[in-house]
Every structure is written in structure tokens, then in C-alpha cells.
């Protein structure tokens, strides 16, 4: 009985508009497959990577600058070559992607929670609260997000010692990126709340005396989530790029635990001397990942937009 109903639910999902638009877009399917593979690779890195590049005991400086395996001086076990410290580039990409994805996801979640919360309050409460939150958002929107992330990172560096900062680097990154991206969510949610809050179902909930917090969370929120998910997906790509940019500028994660951006920065120093693999492979990995995530976000936006049906 239970299995029957879940089968039917599955079949219904398969026939739904969203699934249909997914099935009919090969590009989206390819993007989804790539993203899934990438996530899997990053998650399983400790088991599938040839080397643990974060474990300094496994590094041998004599392997430094080995070219990819298909070049003359390449060495088995170093498929995509080795970097300046003798780290296997493939392993470093897999492990580095964990840092990048972790920072990406965590900062998106942080920005989303903050943005949704403030957006709901702003839209539902209106008046002075609304004006205040939206003016703060306006001010923040007038700065590029990367500048705000740099600012937050810089202030944190001033507050805590450099040694402590190395340990907390990932948290600092998540907070600085999360805090610089909440505005979009807040504005979108506020706009949607303004539309929704005068609809009958909200009025009905108000009439029966439900507290505002419950109305917002139980009734309004589910109706505004669609667009938020679209923003979140697209922002995931932006957050990963922002992390890479910060690390490229040397204010991200420490170089003993490189993320993709750190790898590109390190490799950048060796481009002139012909050791292209240190920077090109992580760069390609980053570009493909962000492209795939953006394609998914684009598709989701179209699929969830009733006007396009």
C-alpha cells in the first residue's frame, strides 16, 4: 500500500511540469549530471583521491612541478601533475573543491536565512521597520559584494590574531560572503510578502487569531520559496566564485589547505615558466562547476515561472 502510493507519487513527479522541462532539456541534464558527479567526487575525496594534500607527511618536495602524466616527464600517480610543493593536482582539486563547495553552500544558507528572515519581517511589519531594513539593503547594494566581503574579512583580521585567523579562515569566509549576499533574498521575499499578505488565506489566518510569526512561517513563507530557491541556486555559483576570488587575492583559506582559488593563485606564479597545469586544471574545474550550477539555476528559474508555460 505504502509502496504503491510512493510509486504513484514518483510517477506524478515524473509527469510534472518541472520534471518534463528537465527531461526535455539535454543541457540541463548534462549540467545536473556534472554537478552531481562533482559533488560526489568532492564528498568521496578521502577515498578516491590518490593523495591527501592536506596531510603534509604525504608530500615530497622532490615531486614538485611534475607535469601531467601524458607529458614526457610525467609520473604515474600524478595524473594532472604536481604543484610547487609536490601536491598532486588532481587530489588537490578534489580536496580543494570540498573547501569551495562547503564555503559556497554554507554562505548561501547563511545569506538565505538572513535574507528570508529580514524580508519577511520587512514585508509583514511594514512602516518604520520596513523602511529601516530596506535602506540598509539599499546602502549595501550600492557596494559590490566582493568589496563587502573584503571589508568584513579585513575587520575580522584586525580583531583576531593571524594565527587564530588561519584556523577560523573558513568561518570568516562563510560569514563575509553570507553577509554580503543577503540583500537579494530580503528584497525578493519582501516584495512577494507584500503581494501575499493581502490575499484571502492570509486574512483568514489573521481573522482566526494566529500570531504573526506563525502566519509568516506557516502560510506566507511556503508561497514565496520558489523564487528564493532560484536565487539560491544562482548565488551558489556566485558564492563559489567569490570564495575563489578572495582566496586568489590571498585573503581566503590558508595555502596549506588550498581551495580552488588558492590553487589558481599559487599556479599563477608559474604560468610564465611553463608550468601551466597548476593553474589551468583548477581554473577549468572552477569554471565548469560554476557554469553547471548556473545552468541549473537558469533552468529552475524558467521551470518555476508560470508565465513561460
Amino acid at each position, binding site marked *: 500500500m505504502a509502496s504503491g502510493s510512493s510509486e504513484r507519487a514518483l510517477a506524478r513527479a515524473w509527469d510534472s511540469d518541472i520534471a518534463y522541462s528537465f527531461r526535455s532539456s539535454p543541457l540541463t541534464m548534462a549540467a545536473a549530471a556534472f554537478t552531481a558527479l562533482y559533488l560526489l567526487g568532492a564528498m568521496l575525496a578521502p577515498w578516491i583521491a590518490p593523495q591527501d594534500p592536506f*596531510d*603534509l*607527511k604525504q*608530500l*615530497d*618536495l*622532490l615531486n*614538485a*612541478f611534475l607535469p601531467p602524466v601524458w607529458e614526457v616527464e610525467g609520473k604515474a600517480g600524478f595524473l594532472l601533475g604536481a604543484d*610547487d*610543493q*609536490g601536491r598532486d593536482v588532481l587530489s588537490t582539486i578534489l580536496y580543494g573543491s570540498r573547501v569551495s563547495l562547503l564555503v559556497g553552500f554554507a554562505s548561501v544558507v547563511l545569506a538565505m536565512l538572513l535574507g528570508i528572515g529580514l524580508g519577511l519581517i520587512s514585508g509583514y511589519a511594514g512602516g518604520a521597520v520596513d523602511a529601516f531594513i530596506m535602506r540598509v539593503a539599499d546602502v549595501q547594494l550600492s557596494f559590490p559584494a566582493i568589496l563587502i566581503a*573584503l571589508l568584513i574579512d*579585513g575587520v575580522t583580521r584586525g580583531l583576531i590574531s*593571524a*594565527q587564530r585567523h*588561519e584556523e577560523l579562515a573558513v568561518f570568516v569566509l562563510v560569514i563575509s560572503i553570507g553577509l554580503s549576499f543577503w540583500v537579494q533574498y530580503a528584497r525578493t521575499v519582501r516584495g512577494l510578502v507584500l503581494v501575499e499578505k493581502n490575499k484571502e488565506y492570509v486574512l483568514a489566518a489573521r481573522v482566526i487569531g494566529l500570531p504573526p510569526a506563525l502566519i509568516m512561517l506557516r502560510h506566507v513563507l511556503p508561497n514565496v520559496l520558489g523564487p528564493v530557491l532560484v536565487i539560491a541556486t544562482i548565488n551558489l555559483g556566485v558564492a563559489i566564485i567569490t570564495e575563489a576570488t578572495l582566496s586568489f*587575492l*590571498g*585573503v581566503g583559506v590558508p*595555502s*596549506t589547505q588550498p581551495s580552488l582559488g588558492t590553487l589558481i593563485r599559487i599556479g*599563477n*606564479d*608559474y*604560468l*610564465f*615558466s611553463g*608550468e601551466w597545469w597548476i593553474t589551468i586544471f583548477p581554473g577549468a574545474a572552477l569554471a565548469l562547476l560554476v557554469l553547471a550550477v548556473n545552468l541549473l539555476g537558469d533552468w529552475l528559474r524558467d521551470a518555476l515561472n508560470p508565465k513561460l508555460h
Partner: protein
Amino acid sequence: MAMLRHARAGVWAALLLAVGGSLAEAKPFRFANDGDVGSMDPTFRNETFQLTFISNIYEALLRRDRNLKLEASLATEWKQVEPMLWRFKLRQGVKFHDGTPFTADDVVFSVNRAATAPSNMTGYFASLKEVRKVDDSTIEFETKVIDPLLDQKLVQIYILSKPWAEKNGASKSTDVTKPAEENHATRNANGTGPFVLKLRDPGVKTVIAPNPNWWDKAEHNLTEVTFSVIQNDATRVAALLSGEIDFIYTVPPQDTERLSKADNTKIMQGPETRVVYLGFDQARDELQESNVKGKNPYKDVRVREAFYRAIDIEAIKTRVMRGQATPVALMVAPGINGYVKELDVRPKYDPDAAKKLLADAGYTQGFETGMDCPNDRYVNDEAICQAVVAMLARIGIKVNLLAQTRTKYFAKILGPGYNTSFYMLGWSPASTYDTHNVFEQLLQSRNPAAKKGAFNVGGYSNPQLDALADKLEQEVDKAKRDAMIADAHKIFQKDFANIPLHQQALIWSMRKNIDAVQLADNSFPLRFVQVK
């Protein structure tokens, strides 16, 4: 921030290029280094790059010529008139950049300023008893002991104008460990030298122009010199290749070959007298940055030897330095008086022996330590430190590396605080070219009153070495002196006081139309530069 800085430097360089292009006879010169000159104050930091940059603006009593021979500068004649008395005749008619005349009072004032803490130059005055004005054109230095090297020590002691310093509240030196505490001399300069400071934008660029009233005949043909900070290796090399910059130092070892073969650039190289080494905090009873509490592991010679033996210097030489370094086992390199070839033998690289030594010392599980390293001072400094961190990981030592820009790094590790547990430093006895300078400043027990051991960051102390260094300071018999130097080297090696790493190759790269004179201490006086 770094990127913004580079972008700004780029814009300025482009602007200058535009200006330069419009003047037919003008020969502007633009050069770049990884890091900035920390201050315009001549006594802020005892560091070669810093001091040679300042030597373009300020002058000392004596200077070195193209062959490193001592020659007259603000003094015209000098003599050790008695064993403990030196007399200097001053050049007449010299004017500071602001027009005030150069006088004997300025010399007395500047020497005392340099010899008094928080000046970073106090180490050169261990032997000095008093400096005094005899008459308007004569100065005398009285020493506490016989100091045959006093004249050479004065090469990096630059002369400020006393009225200028006093008027502007710069009579006291600034402090290298407190870079934020500036005075008027930090961003302004008033020397007698061949160039005048035009613009100072810390961390970005510094512009100087020839001094039309210089007392000496200029050998350079420069009209304006712009010094820019370009920390990123690839960006610096790209700026040179594109012609945006005429000269760079440091040259990333990986790019040397390309720069030597490119159409418009060339490489100038030679051996450098600088030894890059690692040091340990051996003074504190408990390290500031370690998980070992209640004792200091670095006080145990076995731990120091274990570190030494865990470092694969050949791998650093071939991979990080790409052959552009010579490993050394002494604190001085060939080219310095007192280098002993027979003693330049490193203990074998042997991680297993290192592990055993650690176990013998009671650290079977290893321990955790902080490490300080500059990231814009020596060639590939951060990469060397990272390699060392990985090598030490193999014997169970967890190193928390802090690599930072030189101003912050020097402020942290230098005295009187010496806030480090394990550090990298490079040293070239640039003023005297003699080993005694290394003993006196790096290895003798710290003694601020006697002005010894000022750069003994780790606080290594061995009374035998102290006594030898004091004795050889006054010894004039060369054979006896050399024997004492060799003995002191042996004590240093037996104690594993520091880990000497290598003598880095001295490599400059420049556009093909630039002529420069390369000195073995890696100083780069602009007065020898010609643009064709």
C-alpha cells in the same frame, strides 16, 4: 587590497610612461620589488633593501664604490689616529635638500640618534664610547676597545640635518617593532644625497628625482625614479616583460630563464653574500607558540639537531630555488672575510635520525610550534617555509606557519620583544663584509647595554662564543684572528644554534637598455644606473 594596490601602481606607471614618452631627452627609471621600503627614517630598520634605497637620499660619512672599496663621501679624510680614536675631516660646502648647510653638529646628532634605542642600528655602536665635534670640519670617535672596523660600520649610518629633525619632531628614531608610530622622518626625507624625495605613498610607490645641487658629479643619467611595490611574482615579471617597469628584484627563480631569453630583458647574476637561515627561540622558559608547556623544547640541542637533519636542503635547492642557491653550513657565505671552506659541511639529511633524536629528547609524538616567515623579503621565502613545514611534519612536528609582509613580520620578530618561536631570517654583513658582524649581531648573547646580539632573535647564548667574539673584535694579527673565527664557527655548529639554509643567488632582471652595477651584498645604488 593587494590587487587594488597593483592596479594603482599600474595606473601610475602608465601615466609616467605617457609623460616619459613626450620628453625626448628624459630618462625616467622605474623599478619594482616584492615589498616596500618600511620608512624613510634611516634608522628604522637595519635591512639591506631598506638601507640602500635610503642611501639614494641620505649619505653617510663614507660609502662604497663599484668595487665595494671604501671611499670618501661626507667625510673627505679619515684616520685611526690612536688605537681607540678615529678622526674624520668633513666635506665643506655641502647642503641638505632643504638648503641648510651640512655641519659637524649634524654628524654628532645623527650618530647619537642611530646609536640610541629604538634605533635599529644600535648594533653598530657596541665599541663606541663617544662621538664629538672638534671644530666645524672635524669629528672624533672615541671607542671603548680597539675597533679596526669602525670606519666600515659607518657606511650605513646616514646623516640627517639636526635643525630639520628638531624642528619637525624627528630627533628620535622611529621603532621597527611599532610601524604605526610614525614621525616626520617616516614619510619625509631631507638628506644630502644624489636624489631628492618627491612623493611617498607607502605600500604603493615612492618617487625620487636627481638633486641638482649634489656635491658629487652624477654618474647616472636618470631624470626621475619610481619605485613600485608589486608583491605578486607573476605580475612583477609581466610588468617587466611589457616594459611597464625597467628593473625588478626579486626575480622568481622559475622565471629567470625566460627573462634571460626574452627580446627586451636581461638577467644580471652573481653570488650574494646573504645567508638565509632558520632560528629557534632558545631564551624563553616556555615558548609563546607551542603546545609544550612548562619547558622550551628548543633549549635541547637534540631538538635543534633533529630539525636540522629533517630539512632536505637539496630538495629546496633543486625544486624551490631551481638551482639558484648554494646550501651553506655556516652563518657566512663565501665572499665574506672569515668564511672557512673546510667547515662548510652540513650534517647529513636524515629524517630517521631526526625522529630518533626527538624521541631521545622526550618528544616521541612530536610537538606543535609556530613559525614566522616573510613573504616578500627573500627569494621564494614563503615557498621555502612551506617546504620546511612539510619536511618537519614527517618527523612529527606540526608547524603553524605565519607568512606575512616584511613590515609586519619584522615588527613581530625583532627586539626588544622577539615575539617568535621559530623563524626565518636572512643576513648579509653588508657594512663590514666581515664575520665579526655576524657574531656580534646574530650570535652573541643579547645585551642591549653593550649593544651586542641585537638581531639574536632566538636568544642563543654561549659564553665561550661571546668571549671569542669579543676577543677577535680587537685582534689585528690575521692568523690569530682567523683561528678564533674558526673556533667560533665550530661552537656554533656543535650547538646547532641556527639552521643555515643557503646563500641565495643574486639575480636582477632589467630591460636591455639599462646598465646597473651589481654589488655582492645585493645593494642597488641608483647613482650607478644608466638608461640608454
